[in-house]
């Protein structure tokens, strides 16, 4: 894995591909910096404690009770108790993804838990955290690491939701998020 971690070309390739499909990509060295960045982003998006202004954060390994408390204090309107109603009303969804594919700019996760899908489908903005070390070159590399027998819902996300169904004109944001912000975090562990 260290070889992959060291590889700046694979990171560059991922960034290029993801940006080519209208995702925004940021990279930070540590988990703490990632959380700071997210707080800034949520403030920018106008997340607050009122209808249609919440941020919903699906359960994830990188934050525990202590971080949650801090985040709730920093951003009123942030919610970790994701429900269908909250997600449908929220401005921003946040989740941690398990893998990323460099040659297509794709994020991949085991999304059996429904909150993972609610926060990444219903709100107009999705912030996706992923470990830099979870970057893989391509789909065949991923397929040796995931097993559908252990996961009932594997989800791949490549850029925001899009359509070209009217006159072949590309339009971003149909049923899913219209913006996807990917945050690569260098010191996050990779999914088992």
């Amino acid at each position: 894995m260290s070889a992959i971690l060291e590889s700046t070309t694979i990171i560059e390739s991922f960034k290029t591909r993801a940006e080519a499909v209208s995702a925004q990509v940021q990279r930070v060295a540590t988990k703490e910096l990632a959380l700071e960045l997210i707080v800034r982003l949520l403030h920018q998006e106008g997340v607050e404690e009122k209808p249609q202004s919440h941020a919903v954060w699906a359960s994830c390994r990188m934050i525990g009770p202590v971080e949650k408390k801090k985040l709730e204090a920093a951003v009123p309107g942030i919610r970790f108790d994701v429900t269908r109603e909250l997600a449908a009303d929220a401005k921003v969804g946040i989740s941690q993804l398990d893998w990323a594919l460099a040659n297509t700019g794709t994020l991949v996760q085991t999304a059996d838990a429904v909150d993972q899908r609610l926060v990444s489908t219903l709100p107009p903005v999705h912030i996706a955290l992923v470990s830099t070390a979870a970057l893989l070159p391509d789909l065949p590399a991923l397929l040796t690491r995931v097993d559908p027998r252990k996961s009932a819902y594997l989800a791949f996300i490549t850029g925001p939701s899009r359509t070209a169904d009217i006159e072949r004109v590309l339009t971003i944001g149909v049923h899913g998020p219209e913006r996807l912000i990917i945050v690569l975090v260098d010191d996050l562990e990779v999914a088992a």
Partner: protein
Amino acid sequence: MNKEFKQSIIDALANPNLTGALGNFSVAYRAGRAKAYEGIDFEALRTQIADVKSSASSHFDELAEQFARVAEARGTKVFRTNDPKAVKDYILRLAQERGVKHIVKSKSMATEEIHLNKHLEKAGIDVQETDLGEWIIQLAGQTPSHMVMPAIHMTKEEVADVFSDKVEDGQKPDIPKLVKFARGKLRPMFLNADMGISGANIAVAETGSIVIVTNEGNARLVTTLPKIHVAIVGLEKLIENFKDIAPILTALPKSATAQLLTSYVSIISGPVPNTDGTPKELHIILMDNRRNEMAHDPRFKQALQCIRCASCLNVCPVFRLVGGHVFGKVYTGGIGTILTAWFSALKESDEIQSLCIQCGNCKDVCPGKIDIPDLILELRRRLAVEQGQPMIQKAIFSVVNNRRLFHTMMRAASIGQIPFAKGGFIRHLPMFLSNMTENRSLPAIADVPFRDRIKKIKQPKCTEKAAFYGGCLVDFAYPEMGEAVVKVLNKAGIEVIFPEGQTCCGAPARYSGAYEVAAQNGADNIQALLAEDVKYVVSACPTCTVALKHDFIANLESVGRTGELADARRLSEKVVDFSTLASQLLDQGRLKFKAGIEPTKFTYHDSCHFKRTLHADQTPRKLMKQAGYELVEMEESDMCCGMGGSYTIKMPEISAPILERKLVNIEKAGAPLLLIDCPGCVMQIGGGLDKRGSKIKVEHTVQRLANCLE
């Protein structure tokens, strides 16, 4: 031809929105697809897909069994049936038992195939399509015109009108606003639905998984929000191993929409929790509807390698003119013609199979490696067997096969002695040699055919012999092309003989589905061409060359005349097209270019059979560049010119605009000379340019090359 069908073609051609949108799209698609496949070995990739899918269709029963076993072990309910009605009943019963009032659907061609929505709506259930294109056509009361882009035939103005009419007044033709509007209107429907229905792009037997590919994100909502998820999966979606989803997922988005990957891929392998914590009820219906029967048909089995990317539509010169609706209500384009013949009825493909001009573009891009044009010919053949050959067609073939009589009649027609174009006669002629179209001038029929002219040519003493196969066009219309072949080969020390027993190459019969006639043509030619011991059998017509080299064998095989196959193969080995032979002779030093040839700009048109069956397209380019000529490529040089043998007569409305586009591209290239390796294309394009008063000179490569050699 049925009047209604003809009218649907004429209406489509007269719709500038349709032809404009599709015409522009086909250009953008070609470039986008090429970019998406950059750095990928497409041949290797599609061979992998074809192998995976072909192996699966050899074991549908076992794979379906395995899929059901694995999926059921995890709590999925799997229903298998051959009967479309049973699928509809199963879903309706399930909906009624669970008190389902509202259903949201993501895109599924399988449900279109069985007209599921109508069935559910009749029972009072609300069914909403959620793919934007599908929603638009559902609101408009139409059917999809394209497998991937169902509403590609509509403009934003039409969409705005449909939205205003059916959903909410006052919608403006502003695409981002229309998309936002759809999001806003469909969102509550997702949240309120009791059942989600999806299709699947792949089903994996090993893991009991279905793979769903979308861009809009609607499939994620359909499979997440309602408590019941029903997926309808055609058997052809089955593959054996999980790892084999990789080549399909690599090719599908690139071929379908020129994307590296779609926005979303969902791999569902069992029920997941609902938002209220209850487990989702997951039903997967494996639908046969004659797919297994197809898998047992030695010719059509390969059609099950289709991954429904619709690239065969996107590159089709006919589809981009007429759109999808003339093909029918469900599956459209080349593969659609084949699927309609199987999933609906053979006779339903009777009219639409005639839309195919046999250019072979689709075969080149098919990620499932399906020989779509060949399967369409096979449909033609089966239709001819089922319905019999029309009397008039039989009469025509007897004329065509008698070369002297044919020439006499052609001569008479060309000087206006018989009203050739009248009645049904002309429609069935193999080609073209009479004066009947408005869009191009036609060549004069030669007073003396090539078969008589060659007798007067004094040939030097040679050590090698080649038999020349003329074909009707060189023999009767362009004998000068034949003379140029003799001139070049003589320079290389090859004597050219013209076996008198040669007859029609059988292409007209084959392309009409009359395989018995075609096989007999082949047998007569084999005998004539093998009578004398020659080193080469050379032709200057790619359609004839393909017939001699490949189709004689195929035709004899298809009618069971196996005894003649050995000779057919012996002939095949000797057959070579003119440019390829010339290139070999130059490489061997038996031909030499003259010194000091004036550098002339030329552009080159790729004839369909020459490029896509003989794969000789680079040879004439190389030859002429070696001679000192300068090549200026035209746009879409390998797009069909609209000739297609008798297509120009059977479908003049479609042939004319195809030619028109070709002529514009030739003129835009700006070269004073156009070279082509096919006399049929020379006739079509030369006639078209002449009618426009163009100064561009059109020649067969052999005519130009003959003057460039020492």
